């Protein structure tokens, strides 16, 4: 692998972000050195040391990265290149780096890496480079250098325990509203709130009540049609999302996950079923729970893809007429590489749709949407960077479209955000839907 070329006239250096600028202005080399060494000593142990000492700089990870591939194999976008420009340098210099170095490190770790873990599969040693980038993000958080938009989201999490500044009454009112709307279609439909002892707590991310309330409507229709004993809480803790995991504010991440799981315990449910979100699954199933010392989720968590699989496999949902447009499927990183739900997802797609056309690569080798890992949450000024950083996804989708696919199914909110931008920018005329959208369209519904 060639040495990473640092080109400061690159447009990615020109993005103005007040969160970064003001954060950098408050730094001094002394403060940086002190914070870095404190965090590295207290929070990184054998894992960081092992990864750093194991890497042989072979560069096999490069071909895994959508940023690298989309930037004509520019080595500075390769996973190893990003590590070299950030944590290796920090370790080599024992934290003696300047504020502009931290600016670059934040840019690389938070806007040029989606923590998608595709590279970990290409590394001969399985080094989790996403972890290394997360360490960089943690350092940036502790130094107060975070992109403004995602930091505002982290603030919302801290003040409301949800991602979108949704107030307690607004959340409950949204559930009532969606229940009432859905009752126009199914008069007996109910969204049971605070029903203790239900089998399932259905949890969502805050963008659903804020912007995509129809997803709550559709979930309610699916739950009612399938005869599922479910409830939704009237208290904070209903939101399973977690941008604090991505800013590196792990203390807040823990607080969010504690609220979520304790809500499930209070409601005496057997499990949590969550909507179609990837990053939230990573937080409840892997990262957030473990920060709190729960080895696994204390109340089992089932992602929507797996839940739909169960409902279809058990015949609880019947298909009135299969969806007739040719579809393809976007495998979201956090539930495919993170949980291995790819075959169950295909079972669901094939049960719902007449024609399924695979995109290539697929399953655990699928390319990231370039929105996940908190990257889309860094704000609109980074949108073009995301789009350019995922030209390979546009090519992948175009090739799939050429083979006949008209609809992309993506069971992840971040995938939707990223792919919508790619479709729009490249003029790719394809529809984009959640699995829930398709199920709602094709299922037999009670009246």
């Amino acid at each position, binding site marked *: 692998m060639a040495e990473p070329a640092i080109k400061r006239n690159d447009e990615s250096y020109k993005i103005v972000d007040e969160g970064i600028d003001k954060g950098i202005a408050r730094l001094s080399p002394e403060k940086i050195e002190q914070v870095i060494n404190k965090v590295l000593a207290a929070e990184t142990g054998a894992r960081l040391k092992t990864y750093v000492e194991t890497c042989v700089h072979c560069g096999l990870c490069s071909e895994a990265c959508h940023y690298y591939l989309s930037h004509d194999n520019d080595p500075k976008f390769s996973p190893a290149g990003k590590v070299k420009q950030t944590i290796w340098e920090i370790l080599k210099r024992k934290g003696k780096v300047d504020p502009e170095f931290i600016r670059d490190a934040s840019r690389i770790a938070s806007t040029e890496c989606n923590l998608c873990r595709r590279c970990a599969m290409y590394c001969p040693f399985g080094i989790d480079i996403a972890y290394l980038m997360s360490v960089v993000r943690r350092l940036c958080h502790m130094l107060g250098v975070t992109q403004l938009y995602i930091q505002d989201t982290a603030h919302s999490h801290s003040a409301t325990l949800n991602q979108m500044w949704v*107030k307690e009454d607004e959340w409950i009112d949204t559930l009532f509203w969606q229940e009432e709307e859905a009752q126009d279609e199914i008069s007996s439909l109910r969204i049971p709130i605070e029903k203790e002892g239900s089998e399932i707590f259905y949890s969502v991310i805050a963008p659903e009540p804020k912007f995509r309330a129809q997803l709550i409507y559709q979930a309610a229709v699916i739950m009612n049609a399938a005869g599922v004993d479910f409830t939704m809480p009237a208290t904070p803790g209903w939101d399973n999302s977690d941008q604090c995991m991505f800013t590196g504010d792990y203390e807040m991440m823990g607080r969010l996950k504690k609220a979520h799981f304790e809500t499930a315990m209070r409601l005496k449910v057997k499990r949590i079923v969550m909507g179609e979100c990837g990053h939230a699954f990573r937080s409840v199933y892997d990262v957030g729970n473990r920060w709190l*010392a729960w080895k696994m989720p204390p109340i089992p968590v089932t992602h929507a893809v797996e839940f739909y699989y169960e409902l279809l496999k058990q015949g609880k949902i019947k298909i009135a007429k299969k969806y007739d447009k040719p579809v393809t499927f976007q495998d979201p990183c956090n539930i495919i590489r993170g949980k291995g739900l790819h075959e169950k997802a295909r079972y669901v797609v094939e049960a719902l749709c007449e024609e399924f056309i695979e995109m290539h690569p697929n399953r655990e080798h699928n390319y990231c949407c370039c929105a996940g890992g908190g990257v889309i949450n860094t704000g609109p000024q980074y949108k073009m960077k995301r789009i350019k950083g995922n030209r390979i996804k546009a090519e992948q989708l175009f090739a799939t479209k050429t083979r006949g696919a008209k609809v992309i199914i993506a069971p992840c909110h971040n995938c939707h955000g990223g792919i919508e931008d790619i479709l729009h920018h490249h003029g790719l005329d394809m529809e984009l839907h959640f699995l829930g959208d398709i199920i709602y369209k094709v299922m037999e519904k009670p009246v």
Partner: protein
Amino acid sequence: MAMHNLNTWDWETGKKLVVDTTKWKDMFGWIEEPYASPDGERIAAVVKTGDMEFSVCENDTPWQNTFDKIWYLKFGSDNRLTALVSDMGAWTVAVDGVAWENTFDFVWNTKFGADGKNITVAAQKDMEYFAVTNDIPWETRFSDLSNLTISHDGKRVAGVVPTVMIKQGDIFQFQEGCYSAVVDGKPWDATFVNLWGLAFSHDSEHVAAEVRTSLYDYTIAVDGVLWDKVYTSVWMPQFSPANGSVTAPVRIAGKWTLAQDGKPFWDRSFAQLWHHMYSPDGKKIAAVVATKYGRWTIAVNGIPWSLTFGDLITDAVFSPDGNRIACIGKEDGKWTIAVDGRAWGEKYDMVWQPVFSPDNRKVAAKVERNGHYTTVIDGKPLKKSYKALWNPVFSPDSKKILIKGIEGDPDDGKYFRQVLPVTDITG
């Protein structure tokens, strides 16, 4: 904790049919899940009485008043039944079917004082937020209200509010601190980046809160005054019922321990420590702790049980004399009760918070297995299962137990109130 006036309840041994809930199906087209009163004499459910017209059926009689929406049925410990109700979009609280006079744009989060006399809700009107107790709203209003908390006697109410107008997306203003605690409508003078769990002292005079003073510094504020030590995180504080000191779990160097008034209190630390609680006399503190990653137990005065669970521990409770502790534990997906460091032999699909007898000798709990519910005392089950069941209550002399349940066959759907000698279950 709810304080029931048990001496006024019917403790005659025997089984009483309160109502056959299957009859509700003949009366109403829409019936929601039922709720039983603490004394077991009443069972109630939200029912639909007409097009967009709802009521609450108590035993065999619906409330006279109807509403266009009803939710959050809750019995107070004095057996009064509350519901949050909407009449033409105006929300309020109905108590035993009678709505409060004041109405709001929304109400939620009903809370009761220990004896049930004081009822508080969070309310929003014209996009302003406040609390309402016994139909009397706070005079001061805020742009939001969260963490609604009431004192033990229910006479005082606290919450977390923004005290300055927060400019959307202004992360720097946010980090200067925009939130405070409010007590009976009056905010503290100090503002913080965040506040979460609030706790009243046992005399209701003081309030402690977990706060964040920057993105990195967590500590405890008591009546707005910070502890002089900061931590990397904290959990909910508690006041000692014995001397009014304040304790809280605090995180130091990646480990959790208990601090008192800003000073180290327990001499050991854990992978996790939360939900600490005082014995009624204030002499003991117990907490849920993880002795190591993925192993959970109860620590009493800092000393953990040797028994641990892998999944979780929750709902710990002291006996009235403070000498015993019971909790819920979960291992490999199965739930059970643990008492004083020993687990019951049987495992269940779900268990509810255990209950001590007034004489401290027995522990009872509602449990679920294969969709059926029963009551277990000291690990021995009542040889009868129910379709729906409520938490058991011991008689004041600890010799009897009140079982409230809806039976399956042959009395399908019938709700019974039954008082049994404890020995009928324990042998």
